[in-house]
């Protein structure tokens, strides 16, 4: 099987699935006669997207910016904090359970509180995105670094490596695949976090991000526009997820088992 045929299949099947769902949805709406303010047809959603393209594009850019910055902050903070926690056994025992519990706090519930601490608009979207994205990164980093092969730990001990040197040359590279997985999850969550932040403090008017567009369309009973904005939210999520996956793959492809096996097969 050629690489191109494999790529066509990898993209083709999901696209076919999407097409089937859209066609079924369109005919379902047309045949059942369900009111458009309850469930618009894909065609109506596409029309709303096209008619509001300028407004939606600017809203999408704002939401993407908030999510991306929030994600970057979470990645940096989670990686750093996770490493420190993994490195110091006392911290790992005391803080790791706490981090897991904090992960359960729903950001929608605390968002109105956050509003008291940071400015409205972008800063709030960033903070909200960073909060939901932080814990997957933190947990993946800690888990990844705590799961280093004990045999390799022993090898480093045998050669008298200091704890810091061991972290840099063993723990960190070992945990990269796990951290990359955590980052991919965080990328998707960051967009949700940003939209939640926008729900409580996004700017209205011409500076509206997707969260506000959704609210405004909802109160205007523009269900088609609500769907269009939600669809674009998932596009932002996919884009961020894709970008992070690509970077992760570039980082770990050198030694990730699957990547190595691929190169072996090609030879």
């Amino acid at each position: 099987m050629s690489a191109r045929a494999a790529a066509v299949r990898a993209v083709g099947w999901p696209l076919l699935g999407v097409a089937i769902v859209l066609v079924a949805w369109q005919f379902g709406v047309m045949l059942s006669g369900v009111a458009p303010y309850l469930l618009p047809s894909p065609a109506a959603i596409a029309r709303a997207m096209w008619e509001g393209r300028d407004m939606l594009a600017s809203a999408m850019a704002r939401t993407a910016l908030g999510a991306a910055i929030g994600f970057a902050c979470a990645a940096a903070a989670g990686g750093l904090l996770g490493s420190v926690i993994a490195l110091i056994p006392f911290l790992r025992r005391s803080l790791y359970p706490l981090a897991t519990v904090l992960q359960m706090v729903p950001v929608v519930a605390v968002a109105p509180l956050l509003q008291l601490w940071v400015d409205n608009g972008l800063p709030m979207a960033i903070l909200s995105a960073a909060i939901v994205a932080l814990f997957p990164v933190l947990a993946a980093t800690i888990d990844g670094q705590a799961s280093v092969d004990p045999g390799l730990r022993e090898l480093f001990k045998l050669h008298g490596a200091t704890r810091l040197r061991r972290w840099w040359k063993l723990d960190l590279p070992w945990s990269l695949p796990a951290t990359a997985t955590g980052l991919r999850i965080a990328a998707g969550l960051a967009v949700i976090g940003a939209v939640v932040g926008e729900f409580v403090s996004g700017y209205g008017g011409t500076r509206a991000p997707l969260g506000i567009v959704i609210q405004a369309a909802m109160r205007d009973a523009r269900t088609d526009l609500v769907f269009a904005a939600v669809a674009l939210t998932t596009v932002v999520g996919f884009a961020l997820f894709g970008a992070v996956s690509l970077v992760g793959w570039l980082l770990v492809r050198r030694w990730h088992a699957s990547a190595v096996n691929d190169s072996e097969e090609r030879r």
Partner: protein
Amino acid sequence: MIPAPPTLRFDCVAREFPGGVRAVDGVTLSLSPGSFTAVIGPSGCGKTTLIRLAAGLDVPTAGRVDAGTTKRSCSLCFQDPRLLPWRRVVDNVALPLELVGVPRARRHASALEVLQAAGLAHASRMLPAQLSGGMRMRVALARALVTQPQVLLLDEPCSAVDEFTRMQLDAEILRAWRACGATTMLVTHSVSEAVWLADRVVVMAHGRVHADHTVRVDRASRDRSDSAFLGEVEHCMRLLAAASGKAAA
């Protein structure tokens, strides 16, 4: 000028684990400079604990281990290769030097040198996942040699490879020992391997030395099919069987 290798001494060494299990229970042994000693014994006899004590990965609960030298010139080759999967072969071999701060160019040259001597120069740019199990073990052995150790500890290096690879690896171990002249201690399951490689075979059981046998076949004329060699193997087998019986009793 490389200093003369030291004597590796075990003085009434004991290691008791929590729960009262005595893996090593009063071992006294002296491995003379530059000698090759094999330790055999049934599973759980304490031979791996003994070699870990020698390497400093564990500390005895009684007695003392004296490798007669600094820790740095003592090397251990584990049962499994333990290579870092994201590093090329040459960087894996250079790791022990890297960890004590040898500059990049110098440790690279040393690593290439031991790889060359082991006939692995062609694999130096490969990743561990691209190597066979036997090759990985040979890389691990090269890594143990890169520091030019004066005490070389081998913990069942051939336990996970097939018979043919084992013979290759044994030849490689012998060549390395001759080249560096280190005081060497090999832990193994295989009696014939022990007789083929060592000057002296120590049989352990129940954490104690059960027998201590000097191999009577001249090193130069060791041949796996020779009757004198096979006689020595048989003798050691009997010692092992006696030790196992005692352990079971």
